[in-house]
């Protein structure tokens, strides 16, 4: 991996020598990668390179299936908690680290309940408190104006782009420190895509963001840093500008220019 001057940025999280196994099969090999606060980090690489596997480690998603195993660390700052440590409660991790998926997956509930859900789990039941959180999260997700008059309507009736923003609002409701996006626009049309991209740029004023994308132009447009992964290993991590104008590693060059394969 090539070094990078990041003296101006603050670490939000970092993986150190992270290995991950699906049963016997090793999917990640010694991944060490920083995530900087108030920055967008894009993960790019061909299908099967481990981007999503890596992203899911941050949210302990792999714990849902038996036989999966982590080695190494994913440190969340400032308190330096090891997210993948067995002693750490995955529910706590998910309060601090929100995730948005490829396909919008609202709960079959009202718009309001979708956003309030995380806070309810946390034990917040006061209507005034929930109202406030729901409004803030919907505002931050740039959805409030479109849904404020029908908060009790079913989330399933929203358009795809709106559903995805609702999922972002749901993730934002618990005031996470880190947001994970797993190809958040691959199921959306160009207009909805550009709204999400704008939103990502807005949100990074407050939180650290990691985004997995197959759309290289999207990575180039929205991210500050880009990590290129191949076969479960990190090939290059660099400033996005550098990655797309003059990458340091030949393999990255081949990938971003489409010479790959």
């Amino acid at each position: 991996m090539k070094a990078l001057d990041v003296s101006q940025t603050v670490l939000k999280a970092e993986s150190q020598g992270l290995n991950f196994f699906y049963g016997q099969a090793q999917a990640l090999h010694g991944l060490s990668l920083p995530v900087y606060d108030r920055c967008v980090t894009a993960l790019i690489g061909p299908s099967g390179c481990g981007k999503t596997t890596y992203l899911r480690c941050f949210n302990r998603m792999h714990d849902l299936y038996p036989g999966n195993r982590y080695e190494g660390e994913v440190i969340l700052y400032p308190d330096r908690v090891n997210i993948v440590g067995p002693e750490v409660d995955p529910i706590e991790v998910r309060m601090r680290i929100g995730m948005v998926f490829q396909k919008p997956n609202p709960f079959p509930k009202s718009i309001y309940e979708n956003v309030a859900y995380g806070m309810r789990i946390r034990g917040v039941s006061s209507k005034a408190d929930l109202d406030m959180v729901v409004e803030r999260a919907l505002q931050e997700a740039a959805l409030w104006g479109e849904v404020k008059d029908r908060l009790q309507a079913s989330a399933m009736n929203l358009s795809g782009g709106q559903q995805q923003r609702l999922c972002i609002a749901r993730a934002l409701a618990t005031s996470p420190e880190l947001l994970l996006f797993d190809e958040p626009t691959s199921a959306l049309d160009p207009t909805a895509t550009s709204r999400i991209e704008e939103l990502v740029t807005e949100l990074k004023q407050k939180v650290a963001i990691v985004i997995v994308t197959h759309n290289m132009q999207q990575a180039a447009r929205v991210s500050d840093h880009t990590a290129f992964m191949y076969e479960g290993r990190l090939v290059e991590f660099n400033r996005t500008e550098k990655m797309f104008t003059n990458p340091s590693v030949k393999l990255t060059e081949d990938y971003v220019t489409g010479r790959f394969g």
Partner: protein
Amino acid sequence: MQRHIDQEFSDLKDRLLQMGALVEEQIDRAITAMIERDAVLAGEVIERDMLVNRFDVEIDETCIRLLALQAPAAKDLRFVTTAMKISTELERMSDLAENICERVIELNEEPQLKPYIDLPRMAAWTMKMVHETLDAFVRQDAALARKVCADDDFVDNLTHQLFRELVSFMIENPATITRAIRLTFIGKYIERIADHATNIGELVIYMVEGKIVRHMTPPATSPTL
């Protein structure tokens, strides 16, 4: 993997080289017109500048299309943006060849001021630079590009020498002023062509290495005037 876009890049490179060959010919013919006091040839060079302009527009359009439709990245991006800039540099060289010819036609209205010694040397050196810088582009040869940039000092020195000589002519005999000034201009035009060759060299270094070396060191011996 051979990509469809590689053919487009290859075509673009060919067009740029055709343009380069035409510009080299324009400069060569402008210098010949000066040495042989050939106003007809000078007229032809002026006429043919429009061919170079056409190349410039066409290459620009191709590059803009590639940028818009292919969104090239990394070395592809550096190639397309460099091609665009090289085209501009070449177009300016051709303009300067045209300017030389305009002065040649004016100079031909009076007897030759002096035998031309430094001007053909400057021109020969400059043409070599233009040729080598285009070679460096084709072969992606940053070392050759660096050599061209270094060669510019030699042309600058000759330009200094020429200016001193022409100034002494003007001081000794004011009747030579018109011709001496026109020759001074020609010297400056040639020196500018060498500068454009240097610019191309710097662009080639960027294309190959991704390093911007322009404006890094102020030219120590850039001729004043």
